[in-house]
């Protein structure tokens, strides 16, 4: 296999890796906010469920969670898992990352000085207006560094999709390396992850800078 056929075979895997990355963020960034708000719910049952969810997610390996999402429906309900690979994978990633983002949001929300809430309340803002206009924009700025960390971890975590034999760049690298007895696919994958992370860091830095118009 020439280097260029190797590259073009792996390019499809790179695209799939980017797909996992993008879908996970699109799903987990908002879901994390919902989870963070439910954690403050008035109902102790809801709060309890959320707390269990977060501690289970954080207390078990993502690789194991992916296997449970994929094989769980079959073992529990004897459902056919044909066509279920990709949905299970994305669900596993979203539900996992939402828990981590939720904790980051919670920390950010709790770090807001009470004076901001009180000033808004006295001015007559509703609870929703206070959160959306006053609290959330400041929280986003405060948590940007932690979000960056998680997003960079996610770039690398996408390789866990090999657990479900999904053909993203890392799975392909393993396969091609074994069939061609070549180390090259791993080098290509490594360079890809490195460049992807570099791009993510660049983008996040731009966002952080854009938010630096106030202190």
């Amino acid at each position, binding site marked *: 296999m020439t280097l260029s056929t190797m590259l073009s075979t792996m390019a499809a895997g790179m695209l799939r890796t980017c797909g996992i990355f993008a879908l996970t963020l699109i799903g987990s960034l908002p879901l994390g906010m919902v989870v963070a708000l439910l954690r403050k719910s008035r109902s102790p049952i809801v709060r309890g469920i959320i707390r269990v969810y977060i501690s289970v997610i954080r207390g078990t390996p993502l690789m194991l969670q992916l296997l449970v999402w994929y094989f769980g429906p079959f073992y529990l309900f004897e459902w056919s898992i044909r066509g279920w690979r990709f949905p299970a994978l994305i669900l596993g990633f979203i539900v996992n990352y939402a828990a981590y983002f939720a904790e980051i949001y919670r920390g950010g929300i709790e770090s807001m000085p009470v004076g901001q809430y009180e000033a808004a309340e*006295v001015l007559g803002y509703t609870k929703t207006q206070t959160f959306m206009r006053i609290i959330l924009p400041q929280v986003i700025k405060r948590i940007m560094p932690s979000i960056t960390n998680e997003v960079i971890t996610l770039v690398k975590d996408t390789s866990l999709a090999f657990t479900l034999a999904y053909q993203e760049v890392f799975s392909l690298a393993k396969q091609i390396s074994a069939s061609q007895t070549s180390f090259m696919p791993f080098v290509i994958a490594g360079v890809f992850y490195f460049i992807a992370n570099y791009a993510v860091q660049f983008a996040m830095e731009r966002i952080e800078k854009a938010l630096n118009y106030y202190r």
Partner: protein
Amino acid sequence: MILEMKNIEKHFDDLEILKGISMGVDSGEVVSIIGPSGSGKSTLLRCATFLETIDGGEILYMGKEAAHTDANGKVVYVHHKELREFRSYYGLVFQQFNLFPHYNVLQNLTDAPIEVQHRSKDEAEETAMELLRKMGIEDKAKAYPYQLSGGQQQRVAIARALAMKPEILFFDEPTSALDPELTGEVLKVIRQLADEKMTMVVVTHEMAFAKAVSNRVIFMAGGVIVEQGDPAQVFDDPKEERTKQFLRVFER
């Protein structure tokens, strides 16, 4: 009467902080509240502005009841939607300013009028610029709070409260967080508002200011009003021993 508070009681856990305070504020009146630390001055303002719920008594704005105590001794507030309407009657200036750091000065002054009172952007901005001129900081309209001195920040906070066109303005030690050389510029604008007959209640440790600007001084200690009256009388000829003792500390 703009504000009437009757027999206000407030406790935190078992600690009684306000022990039946009654006070009324007429239109155009400037009332200063003085008293030792921990006497409940801030708590009283926080009850008046619904940041704390009272445990007994009545609160009325413009003769309308916002909270009362029922026959069983339980305090009942009007529905929270109605309570928000009461908020348009007053403004509160905090010791720590509490400006919105992500908004520039103009946005700090216009966001609530536009979003809460549904006024047009043009009108809100016009009102805001007028207020900034009055506060002597019209050149700071596009600045962010972190770029301002404490005295300028507090003047923005006063303007932000005034932008809502309240009937009454509360101040909780508006100059206590400022360096001494900056207190003057803030006291000056409050004095100017007093000259324009803005109704105000000012908790302060600035005795000279209280004496010069207010129509009435209330001396609070231990959760009750010990003495109140004309500033000249309270400051120069206090009747209560507790007041004399408090004022002696300040004369030194």
